[in-house]
């Protein structure tokens, strides 16, 4: 029986935002902008008697990836669910605007968010639009924006929208990408439609394997910084042009996908339709076996 060894690489899912950045980028290459000592904290949270974080739950800065200059942002999913508050979002917007000018080899966004922070919803919602707009500008400048999704909070709400504007996405099995979260769907459509406590259901409809198989993400990574780094490096060089042709191709792909799978009752039905053998076993597959499966089937695309 093949057993995991006791000494393994640290888990991306478990790591803090800072630890993820440190392990993702070239050793000691990261320089933070507006670090914790600057104490740029949320002006809203004290009104609700809630604790603040010195970095408002996001780390932004510059570093190198395989000696190429990159700008990077990492959300801390454990602070308020990684949610976008005013300062948090402004740090990301600022980083993206800088990227449009500085034109690094890539911008990396390490998502870990449940969406907009309720306590600062107006500022947060506005900021989501600003961030998406800024990503468009960066991509128009020819800089690939790559999203990495594998944290505790996934990429939900506005985070899911922003992920949709990235040129490329890497996801791990633990990662989830969606706009409405499981609890929101259950609240609005009833537990019969979606049981948010059925975690196997949540993962097979929003999780990394499903997103990778159906073209919702462009690369699948094991739950380690090393795997995310390798995937990010691969994707940077394969980012599509940001032009009308790309948009039309993506629109066509999504329409075809909806037509083909729109009536499917559950995710494994879609996987079967994509030619995945024994689709009921997909959730149980290890990372290597799944990567092989993905290479031989799945809805690969090059149109985002």
């Amino acid at each position, binding site marked *: 029986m093949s057993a995991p060894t006791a000494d393994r690489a640290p888990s991306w899912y478990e790591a*803090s935002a*800072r630890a993820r950045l440190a392990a993702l980028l070239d050793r000691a290459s990261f320089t933070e902008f507006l*670090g*914790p*000592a600057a104490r740029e904290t949320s002006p809203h949270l*004290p009104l609700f*008697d*809630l*604790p*603040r*974080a*010195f*970095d408002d739950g996001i780390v932004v800065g510059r570093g190198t990836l395989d000696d190429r200059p990159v700008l990077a942002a990492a959300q*801390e999913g*454990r*602070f308020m669910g990684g949610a976008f508050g005013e300062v948090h979002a402004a740090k990301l917007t600022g980083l993206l605007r800088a990227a449009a000018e500085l034109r690094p080899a890539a911008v990396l966004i390490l998502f870990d968010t449940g969406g907009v922070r309720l306590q600062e919803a107006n500022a947060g919602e506005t900021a989501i639009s600003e961030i998406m707009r800024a990503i468009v500008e960066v991509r128009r400048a020819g800089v690939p924006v790559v999203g990495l999704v594998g944290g505790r909070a996934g990429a939900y709400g506005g985070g899911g929208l922003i992920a949709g504007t990235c040129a490329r996405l890497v996801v791990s099995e633990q990662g989830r990408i969606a706009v409405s979260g499981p609890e929101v769907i259950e609240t609005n459509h009833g537990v019969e439609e979606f049981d948010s406590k059925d975690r196997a259901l949540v993962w097979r409809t929003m999780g990394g394997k499903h997103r990778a198989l159906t073209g919702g993400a462009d690369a699948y990574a094991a739950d380690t910084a090393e795997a995310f780094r390798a995937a990010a490096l691969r994707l940077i060089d394969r980012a599509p042009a940001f032009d009308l042709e790309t948009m039309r191709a993506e629109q066509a792909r999504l329409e075809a996908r909806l037509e083909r799978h729109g009536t499917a009752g559950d995710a494994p039905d879609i996987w079967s339709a994509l030619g995945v053998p024994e689709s009921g076993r997909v959730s149980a597959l290890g990372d290597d076996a799944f990567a092989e499966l993905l290479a031989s089937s799945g809805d690969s695309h090059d149109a985002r």
Partner: protein
Amino acid sequence: MDRLQFSHETPRALGGGRDQAILGVVASGNLEVLMERVLEPDRCEIEITTPLGGYDAVWEAVIADFVERAAPGGVRISINDGGAQPDTVMLRLLQAARMMEGQS
């Protein structure tokens, strides 16, 4: 939010070459500790923001034990607490001190 401040004299400066360290996360039962080497080497100042009121004596005891154990001279310590238990506070403080003692 409760705000607590403590000031201690220390027998020596905290070793190591780092000017700053941040550790931990503001989450339920957790906390973040920011250490900055900005004070005279025989001083240590601690500021704590916590959502749980009424534990001043516990904080005072934890901080006093930490200062005795680590002698963090020259360091200003800022804590955003998420309702951590004292052992977690002590652990984060020791971890942050060790980070400061590392290479710059």
